[in-house]
């Protein structure tokens, strides 16, 4: 019983960052119809910016976090302007390949710059966990969950409560009509891609201190993000948030009670099962985001 509760707590904490990863990816697909193969690389970049800020510049941990998010935002905007805008109007396969190429460049670039040896980001939280009955919760991981939930809430507010969000929702429903109504769709695309990228970087910056930082860390994260997004239905933000928690639960219980070696297979088994039974994802694609 104690073990079960501990597994549940682990899953809850992991689910927050998974949701963050998924939302960024699904937002970009929903609005821009682009499968973002740089998502994993942006996650890695977020973690490295965090590492540079904390271990390199000696910046305060809590100040470094927004720096990493901003880094993701700027890099995302640059990718959109340089690589996606010129290919606007190409088919989805072409943009997918462009994104694959950009992902290769980013990942190899981090490996080239930082080398293959993993780096640790020091955190200001105490090692001793918070003990609630039989369950132990790490302070750092609790902070990560809190920060992830806050960022998710912020994204929701941005989409639903701001003018930019309104324009994004308009572009999501019908880009052509939105353009006719005076929405600058090109700017919306840049903003969307930058926002999605910053969420990926945020996830990397949050998980970097929990684990270690290395150039290939984004690979698995990206595949997991795909799983989450498929689970929730491509383009469905709420679905992605729920999908993140479902994947975390499946992994944690899979590793705890089935076999630890197949932990990472859970996500893919979920994708295949979901797509075979309900190809549009567990949550049918929403007519509007938010």
């Amino acid at each position, binding site marked *: 019983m104690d073990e079960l509760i501990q597994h549940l707590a682990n899953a809850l904490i992991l689910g927050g960052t998974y949701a963050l990863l998924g939302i960024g990816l699904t937002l970009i697909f929903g609005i821009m119809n682009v499968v973002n193969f740089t998502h994993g690389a942006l996650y890695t970049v977020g973690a490295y910016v965090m590492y540079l800020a904390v271990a390199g510049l000696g910046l305060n941990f809590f100040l470094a976090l927004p720096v990493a998010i901003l880094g993701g935002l700027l890099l995302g905007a640059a990718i959109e302007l340089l690589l996606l805008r010129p290919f606007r109007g190409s*088919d*989805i*396969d072409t943009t997918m390949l462009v994104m694959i190429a950009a992902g290769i*460049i980013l990942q190899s670039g981090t490996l080239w710059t930082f080398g293959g040896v993993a780096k640790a980001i020091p955190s200001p939280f105490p090692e001793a966990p918070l003990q609630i009955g039989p369950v132990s919760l790490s302070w750092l991981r609790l902070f990560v969950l809190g920060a992830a939930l806050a960022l998710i809430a912020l994204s929701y507010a941005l989409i639903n409560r701001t003018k930019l969000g309104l324009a994004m929702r308009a572009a999501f429903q019908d880009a052509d009509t939105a353009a006719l109504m005076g929405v600058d769709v090109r700017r919306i695309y840049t903003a969307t891609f930058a926002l999605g990228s910053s969420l990926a970087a945020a996830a990397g910056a949050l998980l970097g201190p929990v684990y270690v930082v290395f150039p290939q860390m984004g690979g698995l994260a990206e595949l997991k993000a795909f799983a989450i997004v498929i689970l929730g239905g491509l383009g469905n933000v709420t679905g992605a948030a729920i999908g993140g928690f479902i994947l975390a639960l499946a992994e944690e219980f899979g590793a705890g009670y089935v076999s630890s070696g197949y932990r990472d297979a859970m996500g893919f088994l979920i994708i*295949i099962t979901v797509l075979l039974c309900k190809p549009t994802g567990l949550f049918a694609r929403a007519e509007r985001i938010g």
Partner: protein
Amino acid sequence: MSRFLPLALLAGLVVLPLALGPNPYLLNALIVTGILTIGAMSLNLLLGYTGQLSLGHIAFFGIGAYVSALTSLGFDVEIGFGLRVVHAPWPAAVGFLLATVAAGSCGYLIGRLSFRVRGAYFVIVTISFAEVVRLVALNWVELTQGPLALTNIPAITLGLPGLGMWTLKTKLQNYYLVLAVGTLCYGVIARLVGSQFGRAMRGLKENEPLALSVGINATRTLTVAAVISAAMAGAAGSLYAHYLRIIDPDVFLFATTVSMVIMVVAGGKGTLLGPIVGGLIFGLLPVALRPVMAPEAQWIVYGLVLIVILFVMPRGIVPGLSGLLGRRSAPTVPVLEASPAVQR
């Protein structure tokens, strides 16, 4: 002209090792490039002719490699309920045949699937399929040795009654084996594309409702294409296993699929020569770049080249060049228009 070109290329490839002299390094590069090019040719059948972007293509390659290796090494595993499956080693050539059959059967599944899920969903489901297969190879240690790798895989032995046995151990022998299998695959694809079936494939890709209305059986066409494509990838995987004589679950890495996709797209998807041209360029590029830069930097160049090609010659090098020279090009297919297959 277009009939003469492939033959000239083949003749060039046949005499190439003689021109190079004994250079194990270049020969090795050519063999690995050749194996990957066969993979790219098989991918082109799906991507170029039916328009299905399968990013799990490495799964067929890897399944072929493992099936072939395990057939020739033998195994002894428990499959539950106290049942054991014991297999004594068979000749590597049998492994090669079984590899194509096994990969082809998996292709059947993906082909059926491609009709249920389209566009981005299809792409992601194929990636997931490859990852699941990789994780099985990694974790089913009793069968696959997991991360320990399958070692001591025998080289392929060809035998003809009366002529004796011939074990392909040297690089030169392997080069010609790869060239022979590659030529065979090229022939099969060329026949297929030129046939009634090829027109059905292209019809489905260009205008599905129209194709359906004239009585083309979409499910059957896509499935047959997927089976043939997967079987060829499996054959390439088998060649890979018996040439390197060691395989580990990293054979399923997504990066290898990406290499093949780059070869197809850069060379020209939907053309017969495209994957070969792309395969030779991107397979041998590392040889040229090796003295000047680190592997990471090479991958950066790879990425940049891919982007430039997509931008400058979105249809690929072969159609791009033929267009430029005003020559009658090999049958090319226009790039997909804003894909109707994507579920929006």
